[in-house]
């Protein structure tokens, strides 16, 4: 499978990437592990690819006091073994280790995964449960977008066409877990459940249970009112729209979500 023809421009800085994105048919290329398959299937047919993959100064995990700052081009393989994440936000490292396979993790980036916004993807779900902040830079400067406002639809985000995601900030958490059910090794989540204690309250988010990663607000509310893991997880289906596809029916996903939510809460 061969992509349709495109022009290729390698950006030497974020500012240059923003300028190059002025072409309305341009697409940003990071690790390429969501975009290149889409190019090969010709689902995506940009006229220009703006490659930010060489911006090595956007590859870092940094302890920023009460939060951890992650450069958008940090590869999954780096996240899985990062000592700062391991100590203060292990769920990001654990979830990164479940993305694809080693070859994919050597190339794929956290920013690329987030900007691609696949509702069945692991890291967006984990970042949603953590109330992560997304830092984006565009022609009008920098802004921060809350995770709750970031994922707007399947493969759609709040990023404007000329904005570049540069950094992701997550809180330090002591208790966090991500459980994923996949049909095959290296697959996307049939259902994923992330849970974390953030600022004293237990938060839960779901992968592949709707058009975007979703917060399981009913479960959170039940927990806040003193329910145990079993009773709280019974409410996991509220507000979800689980899809039916080759990985499973909506009904099957709803069942999985309940079982995985209970297990996640028990392990938390």
């Amino acid at each position, binding site marked *: *499978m*061969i*992509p*349709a*023809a*495109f*022009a*290729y421009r*390698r950006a030497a800085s974020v500012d240059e990437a923003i300028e190059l994105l002025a072409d309305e048919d341009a697409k940003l*290329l990071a690790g*390429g*592990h969501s975009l*290149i*398959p889409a*190019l*090969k299937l010709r689902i995506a047919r940009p006229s220009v*690819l703006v*490659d930010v*993959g060489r911006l090595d100064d956007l590859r870092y995990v940094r302890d920023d006091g009460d939060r951890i700052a992650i450069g958008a081009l940090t590869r999954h*393989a780096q996240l899985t073994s990062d000592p700062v994440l391991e100590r203060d936000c292990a769920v990001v490292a654990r979830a990164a280790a479940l993305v*694809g*396979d*080693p*070859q*994919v993790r*050597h*190339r794929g980036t956290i920013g690329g995964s987030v900007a691609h916004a696949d509702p069945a993807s692991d890291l967006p779900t984990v970042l949603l449960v953590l109330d992560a902040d997304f830092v984006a830079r565009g022609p009008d400067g920098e802004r921060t977008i809350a995770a709750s406002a970031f994922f707007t639809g399947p493969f759609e985000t709040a990023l404007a066409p000329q904005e570049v995601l540069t950094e992701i900030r997550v809180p330090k958490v002591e208790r966090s877990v991500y459980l994923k059910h996949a049909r095959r*090794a*290296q697959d996307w989540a049939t259902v994923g459940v992330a849970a974390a204690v953030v600022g004293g309250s237990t938060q839960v988010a779901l992968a592949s249970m709707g058009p975007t990663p979703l917060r399981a607000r009913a479960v959170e509310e039940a927990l806040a009112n003193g329910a145990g893991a079993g009773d709280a997880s019974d409410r996991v289906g509220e507000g979800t729209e689980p899809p039916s596809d080759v990985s499973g029916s909506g009904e099957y996903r709803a069942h999985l979500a309940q079982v995985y939510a209970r297990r996640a809460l028990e392990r938390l």
Partner: protein
Amino acid sequence: MTNVALTVNGERRETDVEPRQLLVYFLRDELGLKGTNVGCDTSSCGACTVLLDGESVKSCTVLAVQADGTEVTTIEGLATDGELHPVQQAFHEQHGLQCGFCTPGFVMATVSLLKENPSPTESEIRHALEGNLCRCTGYHNIVRAVEAAARAGA
């Protein structure tokens, strides 16, 4: 066309490529290195695995222009002076293959694994090879080959 200059198996190569050209086709069709196979062409099967700056990647999901300035190692680059690389030798001795189509990818994935984790457990080996599919062997001899290569200090 875009100019790319990279090192492939220790040899410097410089040429103009179409930006849409995938690394695997660059290696096979431009450089004639046909040891890297195209299997599924959807970044699932791992038959096209090569090393990019020492790390395993699926060359059907990397553009040749992305490899500009890098060092690429393919299966042809492993043996030195007619001596098989220890990972190749282990696959040979443990019979870690049947038809052989997936083998270059498994060998390259194993070289990358053992660089990151020189003494993997059996479970770690099986997880580390999740990106490579073999439809003949049932994987047991492949896992034995990786264990043997690790013991040999590959």
